[in-house]
């Protein structure tokens, strides 16, 4: 493949067996500026053959810019892109090998569904019958076998997006790019389509990159998630890794719900939060006296079977309760630290069994491994 050895990007740990030879797409030191604004800041990333990768981040984080750079739609200022071992950094989009689906579908409204799907095939000088066969095959693949003669505007949003997917897959590209493909759809359709896309991608084995700002979508679909923030990669990892062990304050805040508390390290593995001392798992080993951010997820609260031996047990008053369907989110104020507010989720079961109500004082606990510690400067917490 590629004989040029490029050092592994620093600070971007790769999950799983990340060998150079496996990388279908390799991005090296990619930088893109719009005037004074740096949209992509030395991005390094490898994506393996057959992988489903999500670029996740808030709007303006550079995820779409990165996707468009991969496609060649926006030219980067610096850096290299290798696609299947080939340097495509300066190649035109038509000289790369990808199919793309946009949030707006971008279906040609004046062409029938079948002609949309076959749009890229006609150019290949295939015989008409072969094109028709392929179009039929693709339409049944996306579950729209008899809609070929309709015009895009006569289909629902979800159907239009499937047509766009079929069109992108028609030429059997090596890389499938999805730019927020589900954002314009209703919640229900979105959930159904996301499992369909995932199943289709697995079956075809096509390497896929999806841009999304919806963390739930990324967690549900991706093999690996690339969390981005202000033009940089914050963390790359499996959905589980990203959720359970976020490496930066930004990632932990962006993915899932997180309570952040100002804390100070009192001794190795012990932090103080306004008078309340917690035992924490601290693999990084912050020095005593360091001011840190203590983070915990609301669902990690423990309400049952708490006894004298339970670590981090404390008395707290239930300040407020919000009913959110399957669970209630409570705001807890520890008696020992009355200025601190901690979010905690109680399942509907627990609510009923323990008769939890506003104003009560209860004993709760957070297991030490539920805590994450981050340096004080929130948002810039790169480690």
């Amino acid at each position, binding site marked *: 493949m590629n004989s040029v050895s490029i050092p592994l990007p620093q600070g971007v740990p790769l999950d799983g067996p990340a060998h150079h030879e496996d990388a279908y797409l390799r991005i090296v030191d990619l930088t893109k500026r719009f005037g004074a604004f740096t949209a992509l800041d030395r991005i390094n990333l490898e994506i393996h053959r057959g992988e489903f990768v999500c670029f996740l981040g808030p709007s303006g984080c550079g995820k779409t810019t990165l996707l468009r750079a991969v496609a060649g739609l926006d030219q980067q200022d610096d850096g290299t892109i290798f696609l299947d071992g080939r340097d495509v950094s300066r190649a035109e989009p038509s000289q790369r090998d990808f199919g793309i689906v946009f949030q707006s579908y971008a279906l040609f409204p004046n062409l029938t569904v079948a002609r949309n799907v076959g749009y890229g095939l006609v150019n290949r000088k295939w015989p008409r019958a072969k094109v028709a066969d392929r179009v039929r*095959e693709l339409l049944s693949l996306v579950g729209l076998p008899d809609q070929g003669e309709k015009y895009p505007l006569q289909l629902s949003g979800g159907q239009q997006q499937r047509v766009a997917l079929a069109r992108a897959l028609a030429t059997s590209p090596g890389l499938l790019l999805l730019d927020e493909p589900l954002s314009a759809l209703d919640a229900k359709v979105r959930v159904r389509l996301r499992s369909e896309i995932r199943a*289709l991608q697995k079956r*075809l084995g096509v390497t896929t990159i999806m841009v999304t700002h919806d963390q739930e979508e990324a967690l549900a679909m991706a093999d690996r998630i690339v969390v981005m923030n202000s033009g940089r990669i914050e963390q790359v990892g499996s959905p589980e890794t990203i959720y359970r062990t976020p490496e930066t304050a930004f990632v932990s805040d962006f993915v899932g719900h997180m309570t952040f508390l100002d804390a100070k390290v009192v001794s190795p593995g012990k932090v103080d939060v306004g008078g309340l001392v917690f035992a924490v798992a601290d693999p990084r080993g912050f020095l005593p006296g360091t001011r840190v951010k203590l983070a915990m997820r609301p669902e990690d609260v423990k309400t049952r079977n708490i006894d004298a031996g339970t670590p981090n047990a404390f008395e707290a008053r239930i300040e407020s309760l919000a009913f959110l369907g399957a669970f209630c989110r409570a705001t807890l104020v520890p008696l020992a630290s009355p200025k601190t507010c901690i979010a905690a989720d109680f399942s509907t079961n627990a609510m009923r069994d323990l008769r939890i109500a506003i104003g009560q004082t209860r004993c709760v606990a957070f297991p030490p491994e539920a805590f994450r510690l981050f340096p004080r400067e929130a948002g810039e917490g790169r480690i």
Partner: protein
Amino acid sequence: MSTGLVFPASGAASRMTINERQIAGLFIAALCLVLVLIIALPLWSLLSKSFESADGTFVGLNNYLTYFTTPTLFVSLQNSLIVAAISTAIVIPLAFAYAYALTRTCMPAKGLFYAFALLPIFAPSLLAAISLVYIFGNQGFLGFLLLGNSVYGPIGIVMGEVLSTFPHALLILVTALSLADGRLYEAAAALGTSKARVFWTITLPGARFGVINATFVVFTLVITDFGVPKVIGGQYEVLATDAYKQVVGQQNFSMGAVVGMILLVPAVIAFIVDKIAKRHQVALLSARAVPFEPPANRRVALTYLLFCLVAGGIIVGTYGVAVWASLIQYWPYNLSLTLNNYDFANVEPGGWQPYFNSLTMAALVSIIGSAVVFCGAYLIEKTNAFPRGRAIAQLLAMLPMAVPGLVLGLGYVFFFNASWNPLSFLYGTLALLVINTLAHFYTVSHLTALTALKQIDGEFEAVSASLKVPFWRTFGAVTVPICAPTILDIAVYMFVNALTTVSAVIFLYGTESKLASIAIVHMDEAGASASAAAMATVIMTTAIGVKLTHLVLAHTIFDRLQRWRCRTAT
């Protein structure tokens, strides 16, 4: 879903040697070249000519000094300003009331009244003046209404300009007044606000940019119009007739250029005001605004109906008089009907030839113009090659809006008549008239095309590239079919304007390429006003005919071709 789909191994098409980006860049460069030739260089010639003496040496501001210190020249500037100010002051309130009736009341037959008011657009501005001569002239049947004042002069010019600029103001004000957020009126009603206060605090502020814009547009149209003062101005010199006299009569090109530069001033101001107004107007109406529904108030509707009957009636009546005058034997002594006046050979050496020249010219402008404008707008809006070239092309495409026809015509005289210019063989040919008219009406067409292109999904080109389909195929297979109605609009707009334009082409025609609108000027000069009215009637009828055909076609054939726009399958 079916399983076992065979995916052929993907082989990248690497045999592509031609680069799409380079091709797009070449097209953009060609567009820039064309626009420089037909817009930038003629204007540059005008500018430089105004700083040169008759023999071509640079004299700085001398020509301007001469102009402003010579009372006989300077007086026409004063006259123009007076006439333009009075006409604007009359047109704007009238057009506002008319637009209000069309957009904010439950008046019946709105479409018909709109059509009445737009009538002047389909005729050369000369026609209004010819009619006024028949009505208020020395032998006019309503001459007594002027209380002994002559219609030849400022009175006639103002009346003619009010008539011919009315639809231009109306179009702007109707647009401004139809942008109303119904919620504001509901809120005002809920607070018990009086009608007058609602008008002064909601209606007028909402339309204020339209009013300002219309004011400048009308002012500019009046100050640069050539047709009306030529026919009815008498001894009252204005800038436009002065420029004509300097260039055509006295061959004083330098002074003509100075007048052209002065005419450019109000137009440039109007252009800037329009830009500012547009920016504010857009911000005015949010996506969540609720359309305004005019309240069903019989008394209000009746009042406005009466007003529109009078105003619309005057417009239709005035233009009708010219049509009638073209059909009678000898005004005012023999009122029997005849078609003699349509036998132009009696008064015009070319007979009907000018009319056919006009038709040919308008057809060529319409076909070539819509193609060039639309392809140009596509290259500017949808390709990403050659950014600097696209910026230049966009700037040049916007320029003609700020240049009155008369000024552009002068620029063409200086540029294409210059002995050093290898393109000077075009001077006097129909081809140059086509080019000039295309340039004159470029901006409005360009903006129409841009608007349509902006409404198309911006990712079509990206999708095509990913499918390895070159952009020109998507342009032909998708963009043009989607924009077909807009392209037709542009073609009709160019055709109608090419047919009625006088001011730019009056400097450029040759014996073989005389246009109908110029023949009208000549016949009127020669005293054959009935024949002039006849020719103007023919032009107007043709223009209206083309517009009606367009409307009918758009509603029959086009609707069928655009079936994909319907949400339900048929």
